[in-house]
């Protein structure tokens, strides 16, 4: 049976059909649709598969490791920067090893379509000494995810599965196999899971010994293969290493190419050394095309001369590859095309009409007029758009939770007033620990916890702390009289301004919680009460603002 699926959906369905026991994830573009697809699938309901959102990527990684320990196949999904949050658990899971298959999906975002950096998750795989898979197409995604579970169980190691935006968010027809039954092994009982130094040293050595098995797997897999294209026997052959979706761009270019190519398609790491030797034998040039950072190129540079790619300027150093940049690296001229229009204006994203974050910034900006030296430290979510006109309110936006930590640090340095703006989901993701630091230090900071009852930026997923924020803040030690809830509406701006002024004057931590439902989820809830909800994994509609 064939189905038209996004790369993310192919991954989700492949994992389900591989006998998945649970998916553990925190939303983040471009990974969100994986978990949403599993949540909407009838098989996961039938089988009682775990699908609820986790508080952050670290809690997701740990819960999945627990499921693996207990003998089930577990999937962890996150966007690339989520790997930074999950890193402690991820790197150490390579030392413990796994029981039930454990696959960690990191969805990278080259070109930063919806992210603050373009870090390449393959480095994490190498760092942790784990196998990494990187499919090139929707079909390969579907096929490889079940292979990833098998490899994980064969090697007793987690497998890192790397996606990129263009694959995650692109549709193609995928041939679907029948679902396997759910895997259930006995729970683990070895000592290797207790990482005391003596045991950890032994485990670490075992991990190093396993590297040859990883190498063998990379050599043997069909997904790493050499293909030759000969068009003109008089011309020399060029070697091309094409990883993940870069392979597609190379094939796209081949149709227009006049010379000879020896292509090594890479979809699994560690790099298959023997195949690289075979590929490069007798060639003058080695071109590396990879979507992301120069991960392969850096490794090849050490052993081979004449390696060209992003580091040498043959391909752009930053941003995602395109069929055009790859074709041009192969010396193919682009078709003649229209010059860009000179009258275009940028159209940046913006807060929705009627969004409560708007009223929060209107009030904040009014108050901050009186404090030219004060700063508002921002965080990650829809409310980050408050950095753009018309509000231009934010001094920073770094990583999830950083607003409160930075406000505290700035206040330690004497900055006043130090204000943090953080969303509800970001607060539970990693703002709570910062708040505890601030409470313990009695820092004179004002935290605006803008609560729209959902994780809006990524399309409206459940938010972990909904309806408990006052209790959480008080439990963390914020004085109850300095935890204040307001309703952000245009009419309430004067009273919110008043509240902000009072709390800024308080010489300790105060938390103001503007609370009103997100306009997008409000519309959706209204629609739901009018009509029935779509069934099993309906094809996306435009209101499904996911990222």
């Amino acid at each position, binding site marked *: 049976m*064939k189905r*038209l699926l*996004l790369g993310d959906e192919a991954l989700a369905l492949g994992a389900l059909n591989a006998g998945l026991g649970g998916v553990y994830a925190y939303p983040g*573009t*471009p990974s*969100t*649709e994986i978990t949403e697809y599993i949540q909407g699938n009838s098989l996961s309901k039938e089988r009682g598969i775990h699908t609820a959102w986790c508080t952050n990527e670290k809690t997701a990684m740990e819960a999945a490791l627990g499921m693996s320990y207990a003998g089930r196949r577990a999937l962890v999904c996150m966007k690339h920067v989520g790997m930074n949050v999950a890193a402690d658990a991820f790197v150490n899971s390579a030392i413990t090893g796994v029981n039930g298959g454990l696959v960690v999906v990191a969805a990278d975002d080259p070109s930063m*379509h*919806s992210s603050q950096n373009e870090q390449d998750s393959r480095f994490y795989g190498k760092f942790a000494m784990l196998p990494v898979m990187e499919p090139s197409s929707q079909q390969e995604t579907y096929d490889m995810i079940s292979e990833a579970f098998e490899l994980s169980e064969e090697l007793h190691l987690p497998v890192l599965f790397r996606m990129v935006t*263009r*694959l995650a*968010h*692109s*549709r*193609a*027809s995928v041939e679907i196999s029948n679902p396997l039954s759910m895997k259930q092994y006995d729970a683990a009982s070895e000592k290797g899971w207790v990482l005391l130094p003596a045991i950890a040293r032994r485990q670490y050595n075992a991990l190093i010994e396993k590297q040859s098995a990883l190498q063998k797997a990379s050599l043997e897999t069909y997904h790493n293969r050499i293909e030759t294209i000969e068009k003109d026997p008089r011309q020399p052959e060029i070697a091309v290493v094409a990883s993940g*979706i870069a392979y*597609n*761009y190379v*094939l*796209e270019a081949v149709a227009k190419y006049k010379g000879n190519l020896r292509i090594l398609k890479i979809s699994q790491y560690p790099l298959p050394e023997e195949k690289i030797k075979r590929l490069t034998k007798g060639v003058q040039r080695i071109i590396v095309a990879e979507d992301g950072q120069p991960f392969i190129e850096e490794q090849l540079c050490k052993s081979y001369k004449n390696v060209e790619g992003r580091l040498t300027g043959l391909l752009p150093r930053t941003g995602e590859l*395109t*069929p055009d940049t790859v*074709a041009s690296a192969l010396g193919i001229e*682009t*078709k*003649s*095309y*229209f*010059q*860009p*229009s000179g*009258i*275009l*204006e*940028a*159209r*940046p*994203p*913006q*807060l*929705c009409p009627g969004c409560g974050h708007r009223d929060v910034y209107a009030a904040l900006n009014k108050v901050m007029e009186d404090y030219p030296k004060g700063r508002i430290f921002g965080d990650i979510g*829809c409310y980050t*758009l408050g950095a753009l006109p018309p509000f231009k309110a934010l001094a920073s936006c770094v990583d999830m939770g950083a607003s409160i930590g930075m406000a505290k640090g700035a206040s330690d340095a004497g900055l006043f007033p130090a204000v943090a703006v953080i969303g509800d989901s970001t607060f539970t993701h990693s703002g709570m620990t910062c708040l505890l630091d601030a409470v313990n230090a009695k820092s004179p900071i004002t935290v605006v916890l803008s609560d729209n009852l959902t994780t809006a*930026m*990524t*399309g409206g997923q459940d938010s972990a702390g909904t309806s408990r924020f006052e209790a959480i803040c008080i439990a963390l030690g914020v004085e109850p009289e300095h935890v204040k809830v307001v309703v952000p509406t245009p009419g309430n701006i004067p009273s919110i301004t008043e509240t902000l002024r009072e709390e800024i004057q308080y010489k300790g931590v105060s938390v103001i919680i503007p609370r009103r439902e997100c306009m997008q989820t409000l519309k959706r809830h209204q629609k739901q009460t009018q*009509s029935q909800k*779509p*069934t099993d994994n*309906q*094809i*996306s*509609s*435009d*209101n*499904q*603002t*996911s*990222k």
Partner: protein
Amino acid sequence: MKKDIILSGVGGQGILSIATVIGEAATRSNINLKQAEVHGMSQRGGDVQSNLRLSDDDIHSDLIPYGEADMIISMEPMEALRYLPYLSKDGCIITSSKPFVNIPVYPSEESLQAEFRKLPNVQMADIEQMAKDLGAPKSANMILLGMAASKIELLSLDKLRSSLSRVFARKGEKIVEDNLKCFEAGLNLKSK
């Protein structure tokens, strides 16, 4: 044969529904398809596009190379122009004529028209007004699909009609009818 199409507009205008109908029709016609979408931040009122590639042969890249798109279908005139470098020299633009102004500076009507006059194949219509007149204000995007339909060639009009009905079926009969009505209106516009 291949057809490379760029769909463009402003987040929330409904370009993905056009892609969904074409995708459904392609799948049922055994035509290969790749369709890269934008999900995420820019869907909040920013510029959005989708690269839709149809072929009876293998499709490799999810993205359309410069100068190779056969068509730009746009829900908004300035957004149609944003993707000009992708348009083939003999490709066509099918676009709504009505600007969506949610930014402080927007090009003047004259400068927009001047840009379009420079291009060989442009088809414009005030699809929003047409949809309103047809009593189906939410289905303007299907007028565009109707305008493009006969140029897609790889997919028959009947396949597109039945796919449209299938895609909107879960929203009820009235919505299906509205969308079909708009599709036909777009189709007729074209043949005028």
